[in-house]
């Protein structure tokens, strides 16, 4: 007959206690996996997005989590590589993520979005390329305006405010840049603006001197700059080196806090349209900006805001359903309008279209004295 010692009984009791308590504790948590560019060409954008997510998770967990469950947040670095992104999204799904967060760059999103779609899990991304939401993917959701929504506003700004008739376009030859250029060209044409110089550049390009000299010598009224964060800063630095005295017009990225920080004085005078900004006359944005600065020691750009909103989109959808349902998150988000009264973490009234695009107010801004200054607020496309 087996003899039970006091230590053996204690060990058995402890094991049983863990067996009972352990699963209960696990049930009180929900796992979210963020697949994002933390190194490589997209590191600047990806780091901001991750920080925004971390701030959102801290806020939500401090307020009791989602439906009482604390969030377990995991970040995977894609190295801005589409192949790695696919693998990371698959891994996230295999590891039981509730929804997939990220990535931010449009190319890796395009390469990986079918995986979450097949698994019928919502994927909340930071990409802006117009083509992403034209593929009938019911599980893909943006956190920013698409290029299709932003470019008409910018083209109107070029025509009516900048009074430009001939412009140069400097764009990065990846999904984001090409998508932006392709969305912009017909809008310019409709408004009678001629593209006198079309400058294609490479992702990760370090030297923009030759491009800046070409633009300086071109007979154009303004320059439309559509590059990623690091490249935007390098281009502005090169343009200043070469005395390119033409208005630099951009869409969100060019006027972002990170680009302003990197380009320094060279960013002054840049202007254009921004989808999200901590300097916008929206108290919730400004409060987020202060808390982000306090926690991470740097200013948030639009990607920080996008990451913060992404987690709150999932929270809102889950609480709306009243249960944890992976597929239900996408069903609930599609076609929804989320206001800050419904979910304070969404920060600004946001309508999610059936195809995953967003509609919300946006802003016209200019960089002055190393700061982004909002000039005016543009209404939602379909108020």
């Amino acid at each position, binding site marked *: 007959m087996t003899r039970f010692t006091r230590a053996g009984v204690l060990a058995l009791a402890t094991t049983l206690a863990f067996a009972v308590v352990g699963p209960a504790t696990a049930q009180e948590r929900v796992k979210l996996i963020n697949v994002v560019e933390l190194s490589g060409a997209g590191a600047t954008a990806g780091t901001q997005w991750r920080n925004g997510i971390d701030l959102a998770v801290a806020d939500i967990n401090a307020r009791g989590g989602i439906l009482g469950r604390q969030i377990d947040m995991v970040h995977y670095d894609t190295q801005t590589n589409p192949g790695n992104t696919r693998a990371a999204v698959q891994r996230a799904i295999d590891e039981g993520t509730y929804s997939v967060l990220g990535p931010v760059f449009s190319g890796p999103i395009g390469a990986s979005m079918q995986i979450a779609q097949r698994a019928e899990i919502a994927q909340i991304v930071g990409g802006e390329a117009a083509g992403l939401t034209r593929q009938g993917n019911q599980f893909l959701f943006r956190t920013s305006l698409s290029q299709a929504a932003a470019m008409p506003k910018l083209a109107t700004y070029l025509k009516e405010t900048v009074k430009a008739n001939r412009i140069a376009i400097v764009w990065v030859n990846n999904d984001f840049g090409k998508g932006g250029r392709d969305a912009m060209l017909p809008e310019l044409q409709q408004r009678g603006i001629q593209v006198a110089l079309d400058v294609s550049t490479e992702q990760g390009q370090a030297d923009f*001197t*030759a491009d800046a000299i070409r633009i300086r010598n071109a007979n154009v009224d303004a320059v439309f700059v559509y590059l990623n964060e690091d490249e935007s800063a390098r281009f502005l630095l090169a343009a200043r080196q070469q005395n390119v005295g033409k208005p630099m017009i951009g869409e969100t990225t060019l006027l972002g806090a990170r680009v302003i920080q990197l380009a320094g004085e060279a960013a002054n005078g840049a202007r254009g349209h921004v989808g999200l900004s901590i300097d916008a006359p929206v108290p919730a944005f400004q409060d987020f900006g202060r808390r982000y600065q306090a926690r991470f020691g740097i200013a948030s750009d639009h990607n920080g805001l996008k990451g913060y909103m992404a987690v709150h989109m999932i929270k809102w959808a889950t609480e709306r359903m009243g249960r944890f349902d992976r597929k239900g998150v996408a069903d609930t988000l599609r076609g929804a309008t989320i206001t800050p009264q419904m979910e304070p973490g969404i920060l600004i009234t946001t309508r999610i279209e059936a195809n995953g695009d967003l509609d919300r107010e946006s802003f016209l801004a200019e960089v002055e004295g190393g700061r982004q200054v909002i000039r005016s607020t543009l209404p939602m496309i379909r108020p």
Partner: protein
Amino acid sequence: MAELVAYIVAGLATGAIYALAAIGFTLVWQTSQTINFAQGEYVMLPAILILAGVSFFGLPLWAAALLGGLVFVAVFGAGFKIAVVDPMIRHGVLPLAIATMALAIIMKEGAKDFFSSEAQTFPSPFPAGAVDILGVSLSIQHIAIIAVAFIAIGMLQWFVSRTRTGRQMQATAQNPGVALILGIPVARMVMLTFAINAALAVLASVLVSPLYLAKFSNGEVIGLFAFIAAIVGGFNQVRGALGGGLIVGVVDSLAAAYISSSYRLAVPLALLVLIILIKPEGLFGRREERRI
């Protein structure tokens, strides 16, 4: 014409940076008959160390630059020779070359993990903006980069050819065995060569980082172009590295201007292939024969 001159001056500035890095290839080749595949990372890392000195230790920029430069020369000049070259060279040139590839990865990933994966602003020692010279608008920074790089390379040439120590370095590079018989402290000369390589890398880093921003991945592009420059100019001559760097810089600038930024890498690579086919020792290199 003014536009062409502007492209050429911009290319010369970039080429001067490539030349400083390419000279490193030449120096290491002359002393150890191997290629330092971490040469691009040698140009990337000093800027990161300087910024780390400012942000982690609160040093003023000049002090961080001085300390960062000295630490880099000690660790990646003398330390590289003691920790990597000496143990590996006994096993042949190939293991050493592979070791430098590993070193490049360690430097890059180390900069990313211990400092930042994001690009960082690096202050320029020169004012921004452009000046008009004979109707051509030229960047002040570019002019300054060309001037500083030429002065540095000129001083190196003077040191190598006009001083006793420099001539001992040359003798060591040409034939270490005979140099040893003649009483030249070969080990010290080799160490000095590696230290000079590291110091030139520090200079290149300080010059290029205000333009490219300091980032862990900067070494990839700079290393590749410097490697092309060293081959185009001639791997066994400092003047070859200088000429090669300037040629590659100008070709790169003109390719970006008149062809496309998308194809700018292809043009120097095509030049490289052409040189290997027509003049394998490089445009300014010395033909070497070896008994196998």
